[in-house]
């Protein structure tokens, strides 16, 4: 091994404090770039997956559930609220002018008690009329659901073939769904027949409060697609006018609201990335300038021994690149550790759908972050390196000794 070649790495290892400080700056830079990219892309993907699933034009819920926040979280987060109405409303709604497809869903809560395998949200849909949940389930499971068969979201720990018990009633897991980045990932889906059985057993356990509604005819919400050519807003207000005790809202208005919100956040994240990048760039530049000034005499001594300008520049470059690359890897790894496992927490914090990018995309971002960091280091010290390699040896030797 040639000592001169090893000099950059020896300088790093044998000046641990100095190296650690520079590494931190480089890591901060790549942390922001990588973390930001993953976050923006996660939001994008969450949004796309949401739009995929959002087949309905209008959502109808009981009046008492119509607080705006609840509605948004039902539509956008796949939250299930526990509110109920009689299924006769479905027929009333179907009869409104302009209503095309319509289907009902029912939400039940299970408990972490002995009667249930886990505390999850149950969602019943009607396979005969459904047009929102089923197309999505079909991506993972193409057969019809038999009685007492259920489909589980990706966060539910059970797998195909397992048995889950709700209200002392056994169900078989027929399929597991792909991730959506919404609360649907923590849902259990059941067809109309199965959910009726479960509803009845939950009443037996005095669990779900249906008040005066007949448990066999209870539904939580109705989803509506309007006829070709019909105006969605008009149909929604027609439902509000002619059906008692319900509220109809247009789902796309919420989606466009959240889309605007999302692009606002992406924009913010981008500005943040740019800001931190510029800041880290300046800090790196100052740090490298100080580092190189402090070591002017050391570099001059290398020149005395016969190191040419070029190879001195090469040696200094190597040291800077080594710092930037190591820092970039550390920073990206830290960002991956923070953003990926906690994307769930981040999602509920932001109240936004969020879906972590695939491993390919993540690797691409990693590469990008490392390259950007290396480029920043290179650019920020370009002037310094050329300055040090051109420095007057005799003058540099006069520095404090």
């Amino acid at each position: 091994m040639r000592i001169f070649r090893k000099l950059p790495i020896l300088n790093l290892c044998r000046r641990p404090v100095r190296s650690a400080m520079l590494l931190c700056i480089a890591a901060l830079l790549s942390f922001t770039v990588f973390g930001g990219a993953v976050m923006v892309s996660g939001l994008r993907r969450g949004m796309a997956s949401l739009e995929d699933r959002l087949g309905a034009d209008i959502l109808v819920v009981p009046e008492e559930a119509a607080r705006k926040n609840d509605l948004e979280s039902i539509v956008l987060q796949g939250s299930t609220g526990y509110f109920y109405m009689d299924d006769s409303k479905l027929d009333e709604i179907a009869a409104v002018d302009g209503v095309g497809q319509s289907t009902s869903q029912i939400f039940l809560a299970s408990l972490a008690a002995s009667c249930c395998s886990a505390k999850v949200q149950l969602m019943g849909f009607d396979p005969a009329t459904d047009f929102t949940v089923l197309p999505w389930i079909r991506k993972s499971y193409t057969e019809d659901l038999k009685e007492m068969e259920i489909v589980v979201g990706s966060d539910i720990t059970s797998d195909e073939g397992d048995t889950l018990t709700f209200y002392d009633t056994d169900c078989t897991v027929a399929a597991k769904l792909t991730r959506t980045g919404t609360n649907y990932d923590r849902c259990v889906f059941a067809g109309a027949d199965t959910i009726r059985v479960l509803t009845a057993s939950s009443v037996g356990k005095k669990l779900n409060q249906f008040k005066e509604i007949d448990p066999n005819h209870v539904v939580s919400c109705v989803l509506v697609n309007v006829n070709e050519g019909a105006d969605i807003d008009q149909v929604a207000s027609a439902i509000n006018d002619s059906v008692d005790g319900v509220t109809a809202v247009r789902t796309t208005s919420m989606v466009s609201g959240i889309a605007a919100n999302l692009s606002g956040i992406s924009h913010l994240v981008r500005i943040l990335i740019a800001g931190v990048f510029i800041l880290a760039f300046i800090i790196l530049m100052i740090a490298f300038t100080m580092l190189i000034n402090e070591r002017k005499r050391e570099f001059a001594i290398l020149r005395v021994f016969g190191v040419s300008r070029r190879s001195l520049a090469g040696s200094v470059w190597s040291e800077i690149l080594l710092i930037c690359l190591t820092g970039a890897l550390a920073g990206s790894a830290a960002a991956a550790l923070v953003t990926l496992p906690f994307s769930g927490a981040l999602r509920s914090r932001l109240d936004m759908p969020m879906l972590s990018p695939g491993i390919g995309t993540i690797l691409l971002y990693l590469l990008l972050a490392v390259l950007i960091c290396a480029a920043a280091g290179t650019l920020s010290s370009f002037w310094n390196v050329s300055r040090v390699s051109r420095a007057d040896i005799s003058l540099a030797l006069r520095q404090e000794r």
Partner: protein
Amino acid sequence: MILTADKISRSFLRGSREFCAVKEADITLEGGKLTVLRGRSGSGKTTLLNILAGLQPPSSGRVLADYGVPKPENAPEPGTGQRTEFVTDLYSMDDRTLSRFRNDHYGIVPQGQSAVATLTVFENILLPGTIYGQDNSVRERAHELMERMGITDLKGSFPKELSGGEMRRMAIARALIRDPKVLFADEPTSDLDDDNRDTLFRILRQIADEGKAVFVVTHERSASEYSDDMYLMDAGVLRKVEPGQEPARGQ
């Protein structure tokens, strides 16, 4: 190798005025000779040494290196016996060639502390030998030099753990690692006690006796005991002192 300075001058700008640190100096360094340069602080000694050592171009004049034998690339035509290009003008070389020249032919001990702080004593000594070649070729020699300078025990120490005398001896070992033709030492005994100073001059004398040209800049009057040639520098003017003509103190 014979190194000749031919009327070298060096001036600097001080404010708007030109200031001449070295004035038309002529000096010759020869293999086997220990040449000592003395003079007051600020008289231009370091500037002259740097110019001779290929570290700082003169404002005018030339520094000529006479290899004594034909350089391989200019080997004479067989039979003609004619030698070409004995002599190289240092500052006509480009940076790469001059850097390589320093590495090949010069050993330089700069003024003051000159250790690379992140390298051990052994690594510091090896360093000049690894810029253009492999460690292995100089490891053996590094051990011999440490032995000779009495710093073998300090092999793995870092420079900050060394005393002034040890540091200087390390710097000399490092300067000798490539077996140079010329050794330059700029005030190698400043901040050393008498014993260390005498040890150092004895070592430098030995090195000259082995055939190298040794050029030492110093404050020490006692240096004349060891020197073959003695020069004095006063406000940029270089003067050769003939033996026995040493000016008395204060003159």
